[in-house]
């Protein structure tokens, strides 16, 4: 409410961030996982003096450098642009809290990039021992970027003691920091194995191909052995209300009230199961038959499960950007007015400037909609208001909005799922007038059917 709103029709701003972020995650996880893969595989080659492994790694590193430096950088900058436009309040809070951590993150990121280039361009130009050292350095720098960014990402769901102390170290080493770091590392190793399987499937010599395919398949083992235990640890650390939302979603799956969170959870579990079986029956048990096309398909499955799990993680902290501190529509919890019918348009800097006294009610309602609802809903499209409002008329909408204003969970069933509505009685009328312009067609249809 202190910044302009970026209206993204149909898709919604959150999905603009989501799409770019998910692609960036695919690449960044590959970058970190492959750091470990290169270091360990090159050590294997060094110990055995196996030229074939060296040749494989050289070929794999070409693909790796191209993807991580070009696509990784483009999407990384893309996230910053998208987040600044869609959720400026959220990113402002993260920058203010973790200035030092961001600086360190960039430091390691630059070191990671420099080492990646050095690693690729020094093949056969420096001694094997030095090249192995470069691989290890790259692994350390890339994991360091994860160690830092993980603090900020987990802070958003579980700010922990930071909520009272406002000390950045408390926010950084928050309750989900450790389980999240371990599980991310495991996923990164698995993805590194999957990417390497694509390269391995193209090796011409059958015996070496069998060896490399099996070697890469083993990189998926840690996530499936340790992953469930760490996943359980992670779940014990997330807020109680979030766990409640998950269980409600699971219990009500069969009666139509099937939450997106529950769907994302099921999808994540199902796709993970697919990966386990596929990995066992494919590259491990039948390395000879594991062709390039199958490897690509397998990688797509792996990316799908990673994307779904990230989507689920994002859903866990709804309706907040920073849990218990900042709502998804940019309103801070401590800024919530004590009175239920306090004005919204007199609070935010930009929103106040936009709301001129002679503004027509419908335009004022649209302004309120943009600031209070549009971070999660679109007019027509993702979480469409047109669908959600159904055939409600203006009076029904006023009643519904009055309910959304309530902060008592026993009265307002949406409390905890949506940010509380802040609106004076006059603003509430304006908002309902605007919403009634969205579902005109549905209302007309309902009236004609009742006749």
């Amino acid at each position, binding site marked *: 409410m202190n910044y302009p709103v970026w209206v993204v029709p149909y898709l919604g701003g959150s999905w603009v961030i989501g799409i770019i972020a998910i692609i960036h995650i695919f690449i960044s996880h590959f970058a970190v996982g492959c750091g470990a893969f290169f270091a360990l595989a090159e050590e294997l080659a060094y110990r055995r003096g196996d030229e074939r492994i060296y040749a494989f790694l050289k070929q794999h590193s070409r693909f790796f450098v191209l993807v991580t430096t070009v696509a990784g950088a483009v999407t990384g900058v893309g996230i910053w642009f998208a987040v600044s436009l869609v959720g400026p309040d959220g990113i402002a809070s993260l920058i203010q809290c973790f200035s030092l951590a961001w600086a360190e993150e960039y430091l390691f990121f630059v070191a990671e990039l420099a080492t990646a280039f050095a690693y690729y361009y020094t093949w056969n130009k420096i001694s094997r021992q030095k090249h192995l050292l470069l691989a290890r350095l790259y692994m350390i720098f890339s994991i360091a970027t994860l160690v830092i960014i993980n603090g900020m990402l987990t802070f958003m769901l579980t700010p922990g003691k930071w909520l009272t102390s406002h000390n950045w170290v408390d926010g950084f080493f928050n309750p989900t920091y450790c389980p999240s770091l371990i599980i991310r590392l495991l996923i990164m190793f698995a993805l590194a194995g999957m990417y390497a399987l694509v390269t391995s499937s193209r090796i011409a010599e059958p*015996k070496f191909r069998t060896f490399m395919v*099996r070697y890469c398949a083993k990189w998926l083992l840690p996530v499936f052995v340790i992953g469930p235990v760490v996943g359980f640890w992670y779940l014990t650390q997330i807020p109680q209300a979030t766990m409640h939302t998950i269980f409600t979603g699971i219990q009500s*799956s*069969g009666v139509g009230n099937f939450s997106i969170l529950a*769907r994302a959870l099921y*999808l994540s579990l*199902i*796709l993970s199961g697919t990966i386990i079986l596929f990995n066992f029956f494919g590259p491990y*048990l039948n390395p000879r038959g594991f062709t390039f096309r199958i490897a690509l398909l397998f990688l797509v499955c792996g990316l799908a499960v990673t994307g779904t799990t990230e989507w689920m993680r994002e859903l866990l902290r709804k309706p907040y950007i920073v849990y218990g501190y900042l709502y998804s529509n940019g309103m801070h919890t401590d800024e919530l007015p004590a009175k239920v019918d306090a004005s919204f348009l007199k609070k935010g800097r930009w929103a106040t400037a936009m709301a001129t006294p002679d503004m027509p009610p419908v335009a004022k309602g649209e302004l309120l909609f943009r600031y209070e609802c549009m971070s999660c809903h679109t007019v027509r499209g993702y979480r469409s208001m047109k669908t959600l409002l159904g055939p409600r008329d203006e009076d029904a909408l006023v009643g519904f909005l009055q309910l959304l204003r309530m902060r008592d969970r026993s009265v307002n069933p949406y409390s905890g799922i949506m940010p509380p509505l802040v609106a004076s009685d006059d603003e509430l009328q304006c908002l309902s007038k605007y919403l009634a312009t969205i579902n005109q067609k549905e209302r007309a249809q309902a009236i004609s059917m009742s006749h």
Partner: protein
Amino acid sequence: MAAELQQENKLAKLIGNFLVSRLSLADLQHLAAKKKVPVHKHSLWYYMGGITMIYFAVQVVTGILLMVYYVPEINAAHASILKINSQIDFGWFIRSLHSWGSTLMILSAAVHLFSSFFMRAYRQPREITWWAGLVLMILCLAFGFTGYLLPWDDLSFFATKVGLDITAKAPLVGGLLGPLLKGGNMISQATISRFFGIHVAILPLTLISLLAVHLMLVQSHGMSEPAAFADTPPEKRRYEPFFPDFFFKDMLVWILALNVLFVLVVLFPWGVGPEANPFAPAPIGIKPEWYFLGAFQFLKLIPPMVGPIEGELFGILAMSLVGLGFLIMPFIDNGSQRRRALLATIYGVAVVLGLIFLSIWGALS
């Protein structure tokens, strides 16, 4: 490196040897190793039969689980489905697996049937395999038809009523089959009981028996080879052993097929409509399931009377003739003439395109 691989496989070999000797699997192993699968650009279609089978296995397992709570009684059927969906832990999941599984089973069976047709798998000596496949396809559709009524909701009731009315008008067998299935003049308890019996006993037994024959024939004749592949010189033809190469790839395809099913179930769980009321008017724009939409739309297009013949009867006769074409295809295109092969292709393409076009039209109208 080789020594390392041997070490890794030591445990697997130990277990394998134990099972081979205790279960006398050597003959089976020999048979599987002897079987070769042709490798060519159309090899992808060889997986469709396996996919259909895995979906059928899902139907059997989920069907048995649903029978634990489903009550085939006119006053309790709908309530039992509601209970499965809302009160039984993961009941909605099992039911959705069954409902989506039936759709995918019919889809994959249809793709298998048409891909076999276009690969000329009906030619000598595989005529009986082809006919068995045709009957299996009909059985799959019968599964869909009989299972659709069981939830006893508004849509299933009226869609079945339309389906039974059409069945009753079928030439020769319609007069007998219609009342036999309905168990009286209208859809009632007798209909549910009969449909349930057919769905859970008669159809599975028939399908499993026929499937055994179909598989046995596939085993004895081997995989059919497209003409272009068969015409290439023997030294240029490539084959892979059925076991383990093809078998493990088949497993991967099964895993993916199951994955598609699970994703559909999770994203679009199968709902249940309001309880059927036989005395209420039929809902506006009622349509059958997608696999009957083409036939439904075709019948809708035919005028009430075509010359001296009643419109619906004419339509059923026309559709029966199309079906007959598939039945007698092994005699028409026996591989002796190119012209006949071309005719078969045109016939197959026309039927596929017609079916797709009518189904889309039916869905949109």
